[in-house]
């Protein structure tokens, strides 16, 4: 789901903190759904602020959209004493005051001038200041509750009537707590309307079915590549296949470790990287065929690895450049940052990195061992004759 935050009513210099506030509120709301691994990201493009939310495993998006789409509600509540009636002793209940987030101009972290401890300073609008004056006047010695989205944020006790619209909440806050509270207050203070601009739902069955198909396609593809390599390069092809197998094992275990969520484009990226891994081997073997004619076999092997390395390096760096742009790891706002494209770039980049290792290091050492054994084999035979 992608929401767009309407920040046109907010001064430019405060947009960032306003967005941060909105993100916090949304994150808290998202956590209510209890889905595993929800993600909430902010992104900016051409002055439009977006909030991207992913909720895996959620059945109905309708409730989620309604809940997330609400503007944060900040209210101040006070205690109201219900006078004693017949049969009941006086009791206290909580009622909302007419003071809301709209009356709060800004909240920021300050340090108490006497104790040096972090505190939160509140600035109200002119109207809010008057309301606050009344409320504090009524409630000296009693708590005033600050509630955001039905969650109690803070319940400072009023020490005196506050005139002028500036107040301070002091207490035993750590700096982090004070910061968090001020962000939450700001989220309520700046009612940033958000609206849904994009929604994508993928049914679980479709996901697993296509992934199963793609995995099958991947296996068939790999098998035909392996057979092709053996047909074209004989024993060398077998070595490449072993390298390919190791490549597959390393890559899949890295996906598990990082972890990489396998989407369809992700699988496509993986398959493409297999193609490129095999290419490293083809480059080397073709080179080996040529060098074999003018050098001894071990020498030809080393030379072809060395010579082929230049083209493998240059070509793979070019691919990595594209991966980097698609991956967009720094979240540059001018580039796409959508999930599937990113998944593709990540698997392709990982594949290239690993194939450089298996294509060069693993295959090379396998071939070295292979050739040494064959040579000692011939030596023994010569000795026998």
């Amino acid at each position, binding site marked *: 789901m992608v929401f767009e935050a309407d920040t046109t009513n907010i001064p430019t210099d405060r947009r960032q903190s306003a967005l941060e506030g909105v993100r916090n509120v949304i994150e808290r709301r998202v956590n209510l759904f209890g889905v595993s691994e929800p993600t909430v990201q902010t992104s900016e493009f*051409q002055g439009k602020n977006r909030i991207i939310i992913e909720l895996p495993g959620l059945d109905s998006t309708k409730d989620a959209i309604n809940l997330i789409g609400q503007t944060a509600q900040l209210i101040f509540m006070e205690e109201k004493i219900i006078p004693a009636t017949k049969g009941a002793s006086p009791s206290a209940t909580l009622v909302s005051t007419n003071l809301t987030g709209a009356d709060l101009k800004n909240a920021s972290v300050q340090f108490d001038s006497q104790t040096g401890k972090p505190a939160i300073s509140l600035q109200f609008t002119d109207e809010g200041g008057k309301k606050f004056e009344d409320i504090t006047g009524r409630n000296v010695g009693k708590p005033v509750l600050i509630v955001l989205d039905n969650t109690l944020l803070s319940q400072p006790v009023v020490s005196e009537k506050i005139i002028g619209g500036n107040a301070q909440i002091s207490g035993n806050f750590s700096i982090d707590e004070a910061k968090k509270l001020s962000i939450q207050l700001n989220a309520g203070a700046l009612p940033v309307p958000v609206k849904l601009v994009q929604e994508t739902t993928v049914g679980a069955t*479709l996901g697993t079915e296509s992934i199963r198909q793609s995995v099958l396609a*991947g296996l068939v593809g790999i098998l035909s590549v392996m057979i092709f390599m053996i047909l074209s390069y004989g024993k060398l092809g077998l070595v490449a296949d072993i390298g390919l197998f190791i490549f597959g094992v390393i890559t899949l275990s890295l996906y598990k470790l990082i972890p990489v969520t396998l989407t369809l484009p992700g699988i496509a990226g993986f398959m493409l990287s297999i193609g490129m891994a095999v290419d490293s081997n083809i480059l080397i073997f*073709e080179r080996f065929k040529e060098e074999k004619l003018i050098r001894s076999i071990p020498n030809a092997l080393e030379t072809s690895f060395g010579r082929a390395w230049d083209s493998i390096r*240059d070509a*793979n760096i*070019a691919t990595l450049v594209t991966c980097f742009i698609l991956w967009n790891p720094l979240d540059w706002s001018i580039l*796409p940052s959508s999930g599937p494209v990113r998944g593709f770039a990540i698997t392709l980049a990982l594949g290239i990195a690993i194939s450089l290792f298996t294509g060069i290091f693993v295959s090379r050492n396998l071939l070295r061992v292979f050739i040494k054994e064959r040579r000692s084999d011939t030596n023994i035979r010569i000795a026998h004759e």
Partner: protein
Amino acid sequence: MKYRPLFLSISTIVIIVGILSILKWGLKIGIDFKGGTLIEYRLQNGEKKVERYGQLGDVQIEKIRSDYKAQGATEERLETVGPTIGPELVKKTIYGLAISTSLILLWIAYQFKSIKFGISATVATLHDAIVVIGMYSILGHFFGAEIDFLFVTALLTIISFSVHDTIVVYDRIRELQKKSDEDLKTLANMALSETMVRSINNSFTIIFMLAALILLGGETTKWFASALLIGTISGTYSSPFVAVPILVTWDEIQKKLKNRA
């Protein structure tokens, strides 16, 4: 090299056909770019049904959903893209293409110490991109292939694959240049015949993977893999038959100008 005019005209014809198709039929733009709603249902008899709508309100979507539910169909996929996302995506995509192409151009120019190499490789790459977009327009007209986010991914992959292939040939030219004083045309010819087997074998392995993906993979990846397949074929073709001829022609013109001066 002596068939240079032939190859250049083959490319030109394919590109012109593609461009004509784009002009005549346009591109079938998916909802990723256009905005709108796509709903996929599995009906009770196991059949799949995909419906596309323009901009819909929540109420309309709910109505469609309950209608299908009444028939006992299960919803497999629902995508809604707002009208503002489309133009923005197009813009971001063009930026992405421009940045990666120029970075690659610079990288090649730096590695081969000549802007000639960088530009001719980039032209070959653009050739492939145009071929794929053109062919996709034809596929879109006849088989309903849509331009979506995956297509963009495919396009970027094709670009890097094409460059990959061209670099291998250039690398061989660079190596031969160190050993011999022959002119670029002769060296390019040698490099081409030496790298041809590798180039074709390599493309075969990628084509195997893609063919498997097209035949066995899911609906969502089918067109993605088709775009990649067209790109792979075009990319394999363009390195020896577009990039190198341009490089050689450029070199010849440059020499002629120098001689005259």
